[in-house]
C-alpha cells in the first residue's frame, strides 16, 4: 500500500491540530476563556525540538517528554501568575481573554529572542527551518507519520478513559458544568484547574514538537496556527471535547487537501490564501450553526429519524 505524501502530510497536520483543538476546548471548559496563547505553546514545542536535534545533535524524539513537561510547567506558571490572579480579583471573560492575548505576544517575542540568541551563540539559521533529516524512516515512510497517528489515537483514548473513568476526569467535567456546585460537592476546583492547565499546556507543546519534522516552522508558526485550532474547536461545538476531536481533524485535514485541490483547479496562486480556509470554516460555522457539530447532534437527536441514525452508530449506548 502506497500512501501519497500529500495525504500523509494532511494526516500528520490533522492529528496535530486535533491534539491542539482538544487542549483549546479543555481550557475553554475549565476556565471559560478562549486561550489565544494556545498556539504559541506549540511554538515552544517547535524550539524544544530544534534545540534537541540541531544544537545537541540528538534525535528529536528524545525531546518529546521534555516538551510535554516544559509546556505543562509553563502553562501552570501562566495560570498561577496571570489567570488565577485575574480570576480572583474578578476580571470578566473579556479581560481574561485579553490577558491571554498579552501572554501570546510575550511568548512570541520571547521565542523570537531565543531564536536570535541561538543564531548569535551557535551561528545556525533558526528563523525558518525543517527537521526532516533528523527523522527516522520505516521503509519509505518517515517516522513522524505513524508516530503522530498513534499519538493522536492514544491521546483520544486516554482522554476518554480519563474523563469517564477516573476521579480527576469526573471532577473536571463537574467543574466545567458548574464550578460552584462542584466545590459544594467537595471537589477542589483549584487543583482541577491546575491539572487541566498542565495537561493542555503539555499536550500543545508536545504537538508543536512534532510540527518541524514535516512542516516549515518559524517563531511565528505558533501564532499562525491558532486560527486552525480555533476553527477546529468551534466546528466541534466549543464546549465538547469529542466535538473538538472531529472538528480539529476535519479542519486540519481539509486545510491541506482543499488547498491542493484548489491549486489544481485555479492555479498555484491559491496557495497564498491557505489561511483563509480555517477562517472560512470559522465564519461558516458561526453563520450556520454557532454551536457547531454539537448543535447539529442535538438537533438530530430531537427528531425521530435522527434518533434512529444515532442509535445505529452508538448501538444503544447513551452518548454524552
Amino acid at each position, binding site marked *: 500500500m502506497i500512501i501519497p505524501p500529500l495525504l500523509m502530510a494532511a494526516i500528520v497536520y490533522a492529528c496535530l491540530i486535533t491534539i491542539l483543538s482538544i487542549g483549546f476546548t479543555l481550557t475553554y471548559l475549565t476556565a471559560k476563556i478562549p486561550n489565544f496563547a494556545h498556539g504559541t505553546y506549540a511554538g515552544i514545542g517547535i524550539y524544544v525540538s530544534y534545540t534537541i536535534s540541531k544544537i545537541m545533535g540528538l534525535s528529536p524524539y528524545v525531546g518529546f517528554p521534555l516538551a510535554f513537561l516544559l509546556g505543562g510547567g509553563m502553562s501552570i506558571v501562566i495560570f498561577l501568575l496571570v489567570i488565577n490572579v485575574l480570576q480572583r480579583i474578578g476580571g470578566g471573560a473579556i479581560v481574561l*481573554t485579553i490577558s491571554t492575548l*498579552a501572554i501570546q505576544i510575550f511568548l512570541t517575542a520571547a521565542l523570537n529572542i531565543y531564536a536570535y540568541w541561538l543564531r548569535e551563540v551557535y551561528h545556525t539559521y533558526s528563523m525558518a527551518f525543517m527537521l526532516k533529516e533528523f527523522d527516522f524512516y520505516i521503509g519509505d515512510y518517515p517516522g513522524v507519520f505513524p508516530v503522530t497517528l498513534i499519538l493522536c489515537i492514544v491521546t483520544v483514548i486516554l482522554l476518554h478513559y480519563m474523563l469517564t473513568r477516573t476521579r480527576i476526569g469526573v471532577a473536571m467535567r463537574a467543574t466545567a458544568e458548574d464550578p460552584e456546585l462542584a466545590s459544594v460537592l467537595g471537589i477542589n476546583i483549584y487543583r482541577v484547574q491546575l491539572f487541566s492547565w498542565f495537561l493542555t499546556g503539555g499536550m500543545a507543546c508536545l504537538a508543536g514538537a512534532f510540527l518541524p519534522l514535516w512542516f516549515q516552522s518559524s517563531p511565528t508558526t505558533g501564532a499562525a496556527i491558532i486560527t486552525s485550532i480555533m476553527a477546529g474547536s468551534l466546528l466541534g461545538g466549543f464546549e465538547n471535547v469529542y466535538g473538538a476531536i472531529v472538528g480539529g481533524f476535519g479542519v486540519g485535514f481539509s486545510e491541506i487537501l482543499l488547498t491542493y485541490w484548489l491549486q489544481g483547479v485555479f492555479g498555484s496562486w491559491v496557495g497564498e490564501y491557505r489561511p483563509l480556509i480555517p477562517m472560512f470554516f470559522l465564519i461558516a460555522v458561526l453563520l450556520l450553526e454557532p454551536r457547531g457539530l454539537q448543535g447539529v447532534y442535538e438537533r438530530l437527536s430531537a427528531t425521530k429519524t435522527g434518533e434512529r441514525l444515532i442509535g445505529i452508530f452508538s448501538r444503544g449506548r447513551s452518548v454524552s
Partner: protein
Amino acid sequence: MIELIGTLAGEITGEARLIVDIAMFFGLLVIVAMALNFQYGNAGVPNMGCAVQVIVGAFTVSAITMRLTFWIVESAGIKLLPYYSDFDWVYNNQINVHVLVNPYLKEHPMVAISLLLFSMAVALVLGAFIGWIMSLPAIRLKATYLMIVLITMADTSQIFGRNIPKISGGTLGVFVPNVFAWYPGDRGVITAVITLAIGLVAFFIFRTMLNSPYGRLMRAIRENEVTVASVGKNVVGIRRNILVFASGITALAGVLNAFYFSFVVEANYQRAWWTYWPWLMLILGGPGNNAGTFLGCALVVAMRRIIIYYKWFFDQYFFFPISYFEDILLGTLLIVVMIFRPSGLIPEKLLYIPGVPYGRLVREEVKVDWRKAPRARAAGEKPRWMFWKR
C-alpha cells in the same frame, strides 16, 4: 509645537522631529483608541479588529484615491507612464507619483485638498461597510466569539493586500501622491496638525454621542444586556450600529497614516501595531472615560517613539531587534496594568446627570423626563465647555 508650524522642509531635525513624530502618532492612535473606548469602554463591544479598519483606510488611499489622481492629472494633459497592469502599477509608480503627479498637485492646492477630503469620505463609508461585514458572523453571539472572528480577520486583510498588487503593490508597497505638496513648510508638521484637528473633531463627536440618551443606552448594554433587551431595546442592532460607526472613524486613521508616510505597504498594518497597542492605551488609561484614553495614548506613544528614536543606543546592548523588546514590554504592561490597576490610571466616574434627583429617586417614585435631562443643568454647575471634567 507651535513654533514648528512655520518652519521650512528639511529644517526639522533631531529632537524637534521626535516631537513632530510623537504629535503625529498621538493624533493617529488617539482616533483609534477613542473609537475603541467608544466601543469597548462604553458599550462593551470588544473590537479586536481595529487593524482591519485602519488597513481599509490605507487601501482606500492607495487603490482609489491614487487612480482618481492619475485620472485627474491625465485629463489635465500630463502624460503618465502606463499603470494598468500589475507590473506597471508597481514599477512605474515612483516616477508617476514623484516626478509627474506631485508637481501638478503643488500648483493646484484645491485639487490636493479635495483629494484629501475625498479619500477621507470614501474611507469613512468603506470602513463602516467593512465594520458591518465584520459584525455579521458573531455580533449576536457571546463577546468571546466576536473577538475570535475579529482577530482572525486582521490577518485576512493583510493576505489580500499582500497578494493583490493592484491594491497596494503587494509586498513592495506603493508611493501615494503627496496631497500636502502645496504647503511650503514641512510635510510632517502639517500632517500632524491636520491629524490632531481631526482627532479633536472625532473627540467632540464621540463626546456628544456619549452624553446623549443613546450613550446612556450603550452603558446600560455594557452593564446588563438582558435588562436592556427586556425593556424592548434592540441590543444586537445597537451593538452593530456602534461597531459600524466606530469602524468608519477608525478608517480615517489609516488614511492619515498613508498620507504621513506617503507610502502604503501591507506590512505596516500588522494587528500588533494597530490592535494591541490601542488596547494597551485603553486599558492603561482606563476604559470608559476619554481623559484616560488621552493619558494612556500619550504615555504609550511617547514611550514607543522614544525607544525607536534611541534605537542605536539599545542596539549596542541587545543582540535582537528592538521590536521584540517592545512586544515583551507590551505584554508585560498589559498584564501588570490589568492586575494592579484594573480600572486604569483614571477610573471611570459614575454617570451623573445634573438635574435628576437621585436621592429621591431611590426613596419614592419620581417622574423624570429623561429626554430633557442633560439640558436640565442647574445654575452654578460647571459650565458646558469644561469637557475634561466629564
